[in-house]
């Protein structure tokens, strides 16, 4: 076991544990905090994959901006303990086996999808370091139009949020 493997397993475990706690927690604020934990450990995994810019954006935008918005709304609406409902019979008996089957299926096919790849192209082979400069060149040349389109998307989102949250006079 070398250091990258140990780091990977630590942060993979932390992220899966955070996702599990998101499901098991009854209070929405606990779910939000565990989701922040998942995002932080995913940022570390992005760093290990050599994507520094994405890791920084993950922390600043996701764990920072978006989750602060979530926590703000949770506190604004004073969201208390979640009520449990009695599940339907189908969900009770078919849901869990089908869910486990979906997990196994996804894991199996993703694990075998790259079996034929040469190790030289494997993750972290460190022959080509992806730099933020290359990423920005790509973003502002090849993907310039989608980049500009996202600004219009954000403008529409701001207007939509304002209209929706406006209290009726």
């Amino acid at each position, binding site marked *: 076991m070398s250091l990258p493997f140990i780091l*990977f397993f630590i942060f993979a475990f932390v992220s899966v544990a955070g996702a599990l706690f998101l499901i098991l927690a009854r209070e929405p604020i606990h779910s939000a905090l565990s989701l922040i934990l998942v995002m932080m450990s995913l940022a570390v995994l992005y760093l290990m994959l050599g994507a520094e810019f994405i890791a920084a954006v993950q922390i600043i935008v996701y764990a920072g901006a978006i989750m602060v918005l979530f926590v703000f*709304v949770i506190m604004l609406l004073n*969201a208390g303990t979640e009520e449990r409902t009695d599940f339907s019979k189908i969900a009770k008996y078919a849901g869990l086996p089908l869910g486990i089957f979906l997990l196994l299926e996804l894991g199996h096919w993703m694990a075998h999808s790259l079996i034929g790849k040469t190790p030289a192209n494997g993750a*972290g082979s460190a022959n080509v370091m*992806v730099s933020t400069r290359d990423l920005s060149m790509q973003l502002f040349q*090849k993907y310039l139009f989608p980049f500009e389109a996202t600004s219009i*998307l954000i403008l529409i989102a701001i207007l939509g949020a304002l209209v929706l949250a406006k209290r009726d006079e």
Partner: protein
Amino acid sequence: MSVVPVSYYLVLSAILFGLGVVAFVFKRNIITIFMAIELMLNAVNLAFVAFARAWNQLDGLVFVFFVIVVAAAEAAVGLAIVITVYQNRQSLNIERVNLLKF
């Protein structure tokens, strides 16, 4: 130095996506359901970054950037909808929002 294979990241991504689906289906709080959507988007982002690394292509990272932008816009509009639902129903339970239920 041995390195972590891409398939490990993809398995982790699949597990996180599956847990996101489970949370989406099982949770009863509207805000928590939104968080489950964010978890699924994160899992997809991890797969994008892993594939971008495996093929040494930057397009995957650009896609992650766009996914994060769309997630931010979606969170802003979605939480505004949550606030409106709460004003109308005085509850965050998804079972109470059944106007269109047949």
